[in-house]
């Protein structure tokens, strides 16, 4: 019974993660961001020293 609960919880979690994840990916998928960057011509003006990250 407990194993069933664990599995149900994992499936529920995965489903929730997947559902919300799809939305998140839709908005923030790295590939999409890159596509946007290229579209906006950001690639053409990339700096000489690449950023480690941004705050």
């Amino acid at each position, binding site marked *: 019974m*407990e*194993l069933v*609960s*664990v599995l*149900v*919880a*994992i499936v*529920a*979690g*995965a489903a*929730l*993660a*997947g*559902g*919300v*994840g799809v939305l*998140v*990916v839709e*908005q*923030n*998928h*790295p*590939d999409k961001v*890159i596509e946007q*960057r290229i579209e906006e011509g950001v*690639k053409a003006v*990339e*700096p*000489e*020293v*690449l*950023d*480690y*990250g*941004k*705050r």
Partner: protein
Amino acid sequence: MRPNGLKLYATCTALALLALAPVLWPGYVLVYDMVFTPEQPLNAAAFGLGDALPRAVPVDAVVALATQVVPGQVVQKAALLAIVVAGSLGAGLLVPTERTGVRVVAAVAYSWNAYVAERLFIGHWTLLLGYAALPWVAMAGLRLRDGEPRAWTRLVLASLPAVLSAPGGILALGTALATAGRRKVWQVLGVSVVLNSPWWAPSLLHDGFSDPAGVEAFSARGENWGGPVLSVLGLGGIWNAEVVPASRANPVLPVLTVLLLGLAFLGLRRLAPRLPVWPLAGLGVLGAVLALVAVLPGGVAVLEALIEHVPGAGLLRDGQKWVAWLALPFALGLAAAVERFRARLLVAVLLLGLLPDLAWGGFGRLEPVRYPADWAAVREKLDGQPGDVAVYPLSAFRRFDWNDRRTQLDPAPRYLPGTTVVDDSLSVGGRVVAGEDPRAARLRAGDLSGIGWVLVERGTPGRVDEELLARSELVHDGPDLALYRVPGAVEVAPNGPAAAPVLLAWVATGLLIGTSLLWRWLPVGRFASARREE
């Protein structure tokens, strides 16, 4: 195996697969600081004998040795899976309960949180291996506290994944001290000093300091309206906005963070009669304070002064990493708090739901790619050749089309044989934090002493010294890499720390690990520790 162990093991494996399944595809995950290559070279720098501060020691040596036996991508996949499986399993087993559901809550809370997600996405897999080892170090510490025979051997072995890096080693030391108690302080310190010696010995012998400009650049960052304090208390708050999961901007998160922390505190009170949790909780508070020092009034000035004048204080940079100490008491407390709940597994589901974008390798963040054929061709050409390799463009990070233009550390030092000189200065939002390799600084100034080859990595932003290329001989011209031989290269003597003390550190560590293994599994240890220690 405990009666309910199987279910816990299955849950931990499921968690790892949920987070990292895409990583199992063939290829290498190359993102920010995470670099794996088919066969990492066993060079002096990997053992702490290079010119730069030994920031990736001893992990580079261990990975280099491992990749002599199995391909680098297998080592990478095993290491990443171990982070989630070992971390969650350790946290689950640490809870003194017979209820699997309670263990599952601890397992999920410890391995499915912002700390794991953010450090995974920035590629700090070595730090996360240390994080995953903390529950096991705590278990060993508790056995040491109880005077269990041969408990010190458990402490040595549990600490091994942590001591692969300096922060991991310190995280493990703190956890061991908090769990083993005051009477075992010297035993814990002795083990830790020896196990961590492969990184601290060469670090002490270097006279370099970190750039204090890094304090502000790498300070904790607010991820939502809760600001840096609540972000850090929610185990997030890493400095780099690019690696923060989008779900961390959830407006409900600051409120839930306070509620979950409150629940965890109540759980720790319930747990206290069964487990000495308050020293662990104190350590968690210390971790949160260290993570937040740089955002407190006057904190930047204090840290900058320390980093400028105290050797090794560079470890305080990127202080958010120390909040790892808070994760364990949080997971234990939360699990204990829900022990009487009937629907306690819903808490685990809630934790998963609060961070959905850790699933499936961050939905595209962790995606294996293959190195273009040029890399193997250049490695073959350089194999056994004298002269060091200077890599252009002069920039620590790369963005290649073949890796979907993800920001990644230059793979050249870990792919090519011999010694490779790369620019190690870091740019954060356009602000440059100076590097720590004097040789890279000389290369930036045009000094080619000891450089026998120039490698140009194509398809990544940055400038190449065309004059230098014009007077060099082109020996490989591929779509991704070009290799030039520098005429009249002058050899330079290695300028790293003295080899003898570093070698001694490695021998001492090897002896301690070997003795622990023998003491643990051979009869000699059983006879010597037949009775419980006083």
